[in-house]
């Protein structure tokens, strides 16, 4: 059964600073799945993600998100975006960051407290609510970023390298959270340069030099390339073996 596409890109190119950061990419992300956007750094992941959330200038081709052109005002309530590295205020407490995220998302005031409490538990920061975000560890900060995007319960979550620098236990917990969200009908597009996270995704898009090298399930990819893991499959596909 072919599911609806939450995100669909048709022949998308982005020229950034004089070079083609994204070069003729077509892909689809099925609703209710966790899709990994994998590739080495500089492969165009962040640019592609910026095009999906509608903050990238000079996008050629068609980017459709939840049935609308990317960046449409109506999507701002339905798409959550976790930017690479930051996106939250280090000089606010975790709770204050989440409260502001709730306000920015346009949540009615009476719903803010409940949403903040729920999100703190979701990202496992219930105990650190009143800590200054800048004093948290890198992993905890990433979870505050994630919480800020998660809080308004968007239909699509777009995450740019959310697991960078996290310890393995935390990474596993986050991926479990991603799958719980997908099971509840949400869609997640997650970029990573860590190939060993590939097996945690329902579907994979391998990117290199701004082009799609392959799009398949992890198992399908291994089968097609006759390899044991996605890293080897990647090497096989780019002809490096």
């Amino acid at each position: 059964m072919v599911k609806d596409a939450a995100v669909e890109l048709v022949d998308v190119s982005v020229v950034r600073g004089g070079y083609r950061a994204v070069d003729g990419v077509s892909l689809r992300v099925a609703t209710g799945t966790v899709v990994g956007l994998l590739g080495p750094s500089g492969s165009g992941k962040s640019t592609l993600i910026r095009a999906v959330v509608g903050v990238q200038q000079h996008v050629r081709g068609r980017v459709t998100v939840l049935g609308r052109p990317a960046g449409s005002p109506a999507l701002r309530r339905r798409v959550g975006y976790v930017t690479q590295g930051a996106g939250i205020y280090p000089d606010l407490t975790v709770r204050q960051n989440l409260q502001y995220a709730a306000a920015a998302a346009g949540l009615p005031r009476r719903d803010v407290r409940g949403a903040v409490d729920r999100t703190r538990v979701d990202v496992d920061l219930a105990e650190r609510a009143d800590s200054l975000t800048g004093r948290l560890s890198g992993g905890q900060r990433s979870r505050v970023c994630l919480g800020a995007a998660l809080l308004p319960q968007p239909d699509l979550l777009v995450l740019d390298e959310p697991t960078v620098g996290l310890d393995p236990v935390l990474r596993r917990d986050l991926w479990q959270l991603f799958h719980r969200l997908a099971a509840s009908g949400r869609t997640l597009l997650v970029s990573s340069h860590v190939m060993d996270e590939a097996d945690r995704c329902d579907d994979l898009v391998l990117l290199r030099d701004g082009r799609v090298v392959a799009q398949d399930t992890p198992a399908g990819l291994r089968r097609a390339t006759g390899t044991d893991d996605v890293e080897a499959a990647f090497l096989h596909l780019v002809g490096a073996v």
Partner: protein
Amino acid sequence: MGATAVRVLRQVRHDPRTVGLVVVVPSVLVALMAWVYSGTDVFDRVGAPMLALFPFTVMFLVTSLTTLRERQSGTLERLLTTPLRRHELIGGYALAFGLLAAVQAVVATTVAQLVGLDVAGPWWALLGVAVLISVLGTALGLLASAFATTELQAVQFMPAFVLPQLLLCGLLRPREDLPAGLRELSSLLPLSHAVDAVTVIAVQPDVGRDLLEPVLVVLGFTVAALVAGSLTLRRRTP
């Protein structure tokens, strides 16, 4: 707008040193000025304009650096993907820093009074104008941050943006005595009108209409800078 103002004020509260500097520095400078010119009547002439100038400069700097940080840290990019409107963001910043500016103006004006500044007009008018001028500094700082890509540049904007206005605002030499060309130029600069407003209060017991004109001009510059600042927030960036 309210949510953004609360957020900015909460950030400021976690940085007591900045609050201290913003509130204390202009007052100290005013007091120092009074001391430097003790025994002369110079302080009576320049004291009131200083109440306009110091808060203007401090708020310009604080605001341009804070908003530059927002532009660069990725928080702005994320915010622009949310339903938050750009004018709510800019308005929230102006509101929060305006409040901070008001505290600063109250303290600086009180100190000026304590160190013997004599003004002919009412103190409440001086206070009100000082707040207005701080908000002008905030609005221009918001706008200036759009043209800086590093903090080093933002700091350089201060001498580039503020010092020429200081030279031409009538403090060093009355504006009507400036050479042709500079005189016209000075009336295009917001700080000139700010100093005009303060000078009216300093020399006229009955301010009334003479104050209204420069105040309206300063207000106009403030609104224009805020509108221009919100136009510089682009949802899509290269």
